[in-house]
Structures are given as structure tokens and as C-alpha cells.
């Protein structure tokens, strides 16, 4: 990855974070913490990895992305808007009555959303069904799913993990955002999902662990995922919940709480300073 590519991705991620704060602030609700921890991934997916076209959001061979941790919709929406799927200004209608930007992703109303999600554990199963169907249809697309580290406490996730291995879904890549926090506190105190990598491998997946805020490591992991044949691939990314907004970082309290006017002002100030720094690089 060239320095310029990395810079462009950093800028995109910073803008995604801005969209997350603008959206959740305007909504007076929503989930900024996990959206921010996944912001770098959203930027990478929509500006580097996914074969998608905002002018043809339903093209048959597009890569599918399923936000299994659907509550991080503010991050997904910001990335989709930034990529041109719908107007950026619409982010401020997030969760508003009669807005198409529902609190959790709605495939029927939002351009670029391939599966409605929100009830944890179901998205990864849907992604399995998509990957399976793609093989039957000789569709060259790849299917990506993003899960939370709290989400993998759902038993259904492991039903899906068995399924993906059993049917050799090597066109499927699952990313687990291991930010370590869920609503009630640290994941290892609420109900430990660890060791995550060992579990994935025991379920027959190829798996890698990366720093989820390092684009170079993302690039290497996604390349590795594509090279594997006959098995699904999982990327466990270590992240910081609330990443990019100083007072939200590593705070479980920011899982599902919107910033007030003052907090949003502070957060947007930090992000605009970061954006100016990146653009000056």
C-alpha cells in the first residue's frame, strides 16, 4: 500500500467518523462506540476492498456486505454516503421518523444495504446463505460480514460457523470487531468469548488477527482471505471502541448513547483537526 493510498483511506475513515458523530447527534440516539471502532474497516471496505458501484447498487456480481452487528449502522451509512450511495446530508435524518435511514440497516429502503440486520447473530447466517447461493449461481462475488465480539456470544453465530465450514464457503469472509466492550461492560466480564481465534480455527475456519486500525494489516489479511480455497476466512481485528474521539475511547458507556450538543461539538472539533492534519500530510 502506498503512502498516498494509506492517507486517502485515513481521510475516508476520518470522514466516516465525522458522519457517525453527526448522525448519532442528530438522532439523539444510536451506537457511536462500535461504529467508531469499525470506521477504519468501513473505509477500507468501501474505498478499497468491495466491488460495488453506487450508480448500480443492485448489480448482480457486486460483493455483498452484511453488517451482522447491525447497531453499527451509523458507520455503515456514513461509508455508503461517502461512497456516493446516497446524499451525505441525509445522515442527519438517521433514526428520524419517516427517514429511510432506519436505526438498523434496512435492505428495502437503503441503497447499498444487502441485508437487513440488527438482531444479533442473524447476519452471519444470511451471509452464509448468500455465499452458498453465489456458488450455485456461478456468481464471482465475495460475501463479507462484520460481527461484534459481543455478538459472537449468540449461539446462532456458531451454527453459522459450522455451516460455512461444512459447505466450504471460501467466498465468505467474516470480520470480528474485537473492541472488548459490550453494553454491560468488558466482554470477558459479561461472558467471555475468548479465545476467539482458537474457536474459529476449531470450527474449521482459516483465521488471522490484525490491528483493526492498520490499513496495511487489513490489506494483507483480505489478500490472505482471497487466497484460501475450500474454507471460509475470518479476520479478528483488535480495535479501540470509540476510536478517534478521545472521550469515547474504551468507554462501554458510549456503546449506545448519542453525544449531546457540547460533546458532539468537541468530537467534531477533534475530527476536523485530525482531518486537517491528514490532508496536510
Amino acid at each position, binding site marked *: 500500500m502506498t503512502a498516498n493510498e494509506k492517507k486517502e483511506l485515513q481521510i475516508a475513515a476520518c470522514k466516516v467518523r465525522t458522519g457517525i458523530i453527526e448522525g448519532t447527534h442528530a438522532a439523539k440516539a444510536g451506537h457511536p462506540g462500535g461504529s467508531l471502532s469499525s470506521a477504519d474497516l468501513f473505509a477500507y471496505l468501501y474505498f478499497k476492498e468491495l466491488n460495488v458501484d453506487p450508480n448500480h447498487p443492485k448489480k448482480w456480481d457486486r460483493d*455483498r456486505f*452484511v453488517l451482522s452487528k447491525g447497531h453499527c449502522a451509523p458507520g455503515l451509512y456514513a461509508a455508503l454516503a461517502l461512497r456516493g450511495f446516497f446524499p451525505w446530508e441525509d445522515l442527519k435524518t438517521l433514526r428520524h421518523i419517516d427517514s429511510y435511514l432506519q436505526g438498523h440497516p*434496512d*435492505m*428495502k429502503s437503503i441503497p447499498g444495504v*444487502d*441485508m*437487513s440486520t*440488527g*438482531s444479533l*447473530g*442473524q*447476519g452471519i*447466517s*444470511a*451471509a*452464509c*446463505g*448468500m*455465499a*452458498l*447461493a*453465489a456458488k*450455485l*449461481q456461478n*456468481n464471482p462475488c465475495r460475501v463479507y460480514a462484520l460481527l461484534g465480539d459481543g455478538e459472537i456470544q449468540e*449461539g*446462532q453465530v456458531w*451454527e*453459522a460457523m*459450522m*455451516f460455512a465450514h*461444512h*459447505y466450504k464457503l471460501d467466498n465468505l469472509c467474516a470480520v470480528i470487531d474485537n473492541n472488548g466492550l459490550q453494553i454491560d461492560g468488558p466482554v470477558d466480564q459479561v461472558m467471555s468469548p475468548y479465545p476467539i481465534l482458537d474457536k474459529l480455527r476449531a470450527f474449521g475456519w482459516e483465521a488471522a488477527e490484525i490491528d483493526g486500525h492498520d490499513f496495511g494489516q487489513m490489506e494483507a489479511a483480505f489478500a490472505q482471505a482471497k487466497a484460501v480455497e475450500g474454507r471460509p476466512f475470518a479476520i479478528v481485528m483488535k480495535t479501540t471502541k470509540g476510536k478517534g474521539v478521545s472521550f469515547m475511547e474504551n468507554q462501554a458507556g458510549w456503546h449506545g448513547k448519542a453525544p449531546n450538543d457540547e460533546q458532539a461539538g468537541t468530537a467534531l472539533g477533534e475530527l476536523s483537526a485530525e482531518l486537517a492534519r491528514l490532508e496536510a500530510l
Partner: protein
Amino acid sequence: MADVKKIATRQGYGEALRELGAVHDNVIVFDADLAGSTQTAMFGKAYPGRHFNCGIAEGNMMAAAAGAAAMGMVAFASSFAMFAAGRAYEQVRNSIGYTGLNVKIGASHGGISVGEDGATHQCLEDFALMRSIPGMVVMSPADAVEAKAMVRAAYEHQGPVYMRFGRSPVPVFHDEETFRFEIGRGDVMREGSDIAIIANGLLVAEAVEAGKLLADRGVSARIINMATIKPLDEELVLKAARECGKIVTCEEHSVIGGLGEAVCSLLAEKLPTPVRRIGTPDVFGHSGPAAALLEQFGLCAANIAKVAEEFARS
């Protein structure tokens, strides 16, 4: 009815799937370790590349079926009614109902006639659960011929469908050559004017028998097969209410939330009419042979005739 051929509706489901598979490449079938029982194994044998056993994991199966449907496949997902509608309710609601995806749920072994397995496997709540999901079509065929036609109609229908099939062989009284099925349309099996009996599933044959018993006793009963519970054939129900004045509903389901309540809701708002609901009362079932259980719970021609006669004469 000893001389009548008896076939379980689940067998009609399996045969119809196999026939659909021959014509349509986009049919994909999921099962959850019950392929022999739900009869999707017939499809699996003919088209092994499009039949996917999910193991004992119904939640994953339903959401995976939704994913396949999101890719343009017409996905059939099967298990026992208890697990398809019950265990996987929330996956059906959120991944299939909310999305409006083209998933057809083929639920076998519905009702008390599951028999010996007992209460844990006798699903008496599936109509109620599935009816409450916006956009979900809910159906239960009266015989194997209707089951096959229903599966073909489900394939053609755009959107989610729930079909409940039975374990036990039931009389085949429709003619496969001439029978035409339409989602949302009830069929008058026998004309009558004193009382109308609206039934579905295996109780249609019992209701038809009850109609004969009632005729012998001087009661003219209209017998209606209401294979589609949702959307309900409102015109046919209202016509029966207007012309007969009293209605009995019969279903192999709790009296809470099924066909009986659908009929009552309609009539309460549009044409208040006295109704008696025959179904399982607010209790769980228990083990026993299917026929004995049906009789014990009053889900038989003799009891339908008894309830209808008393009601008609009251």
C-alpha cells in the same frame, strides 16, 4: 372413509418440491436434520446440489435461507412446525418477514396429530405466531393434492410464505387433474344454509363428514375449506355469516390466534355473528396415537357435528 386413499400432506410437499426442482433452477431447499420426515429428502435425492442440510440449527437455517433468497433464489426451509415457527420465530420475523424475502417455510408435523412424541413436538401455536408477522402468508392444506398445488402457488408468490403440513396420512378428496389452488381463496366443499363450518388442515375431511352427519339430523351445514389463514378470504366468510347466521371454526391449533380468531376478528368488526371455535383449548397436548388424541380433543367429525348441531338449534 376406509375406501379413500390416505396420504400425509407432507408427502405432497416433498413431491411438489421435486417437481418444482425439475422446472426451476432457482429452487434451493434447506432442512434441519429432518429431511426424511419433512419429505424434502425427495428433492435432495433428485437434486443433491441444491439441497442443504443445516443440521439441528433452525435459527441459522432460516437466516441462511433468507441470504440465499437475497441472491435471487427461491428458498424453501423445512423443519417441524414446532422448530420452524417456534424455535426460529425471531429469525423468521426479522430475516424473512421484515425483509420480505422469497423464503417459503415448509413446516411439517404440525398440530396434535404428531401423536406419540407428545407436547414438546405438538405445535399448536404456529398459525398464531406466523399470522402476527406482517406480510406473511399462512396456509395449511387439507390433503396431499392441495398441498402440492399450494407449494406451486407458494413458489409463484413473491414474498414469505408459511405452510403447515401434517405427519399423519389423511384422506385425499381433491382431484389432482381438476383441482385449482389460489392463495387467499377458500373453497365451499358442501353447500348449506343453517350453519357454516370453516375448517383447515386435516379437519376439512372431518368437517365434510360432519356435514353428512348433520344432514342426516336435518341440519344444513355449509362446509368451507379455508386453506389460507392469512390473507383470509373475507368475502367468503362474510357471505357465510350473512347466509348461515352462525359459524363454527375447526383447526388443529390452539383456539388462541389461529383460524378461529382470524374469523372472529373479521366478523366482530364487519358483521357480528355468533361463532363457536373448535381447536385445542389453552392447554398443551400429550402423548398418544394421533387418532385417539384427535378424538380426545374433539377434533373429529362426531364432535364437530355435535357442537354444530347444538349451536344451530340454540
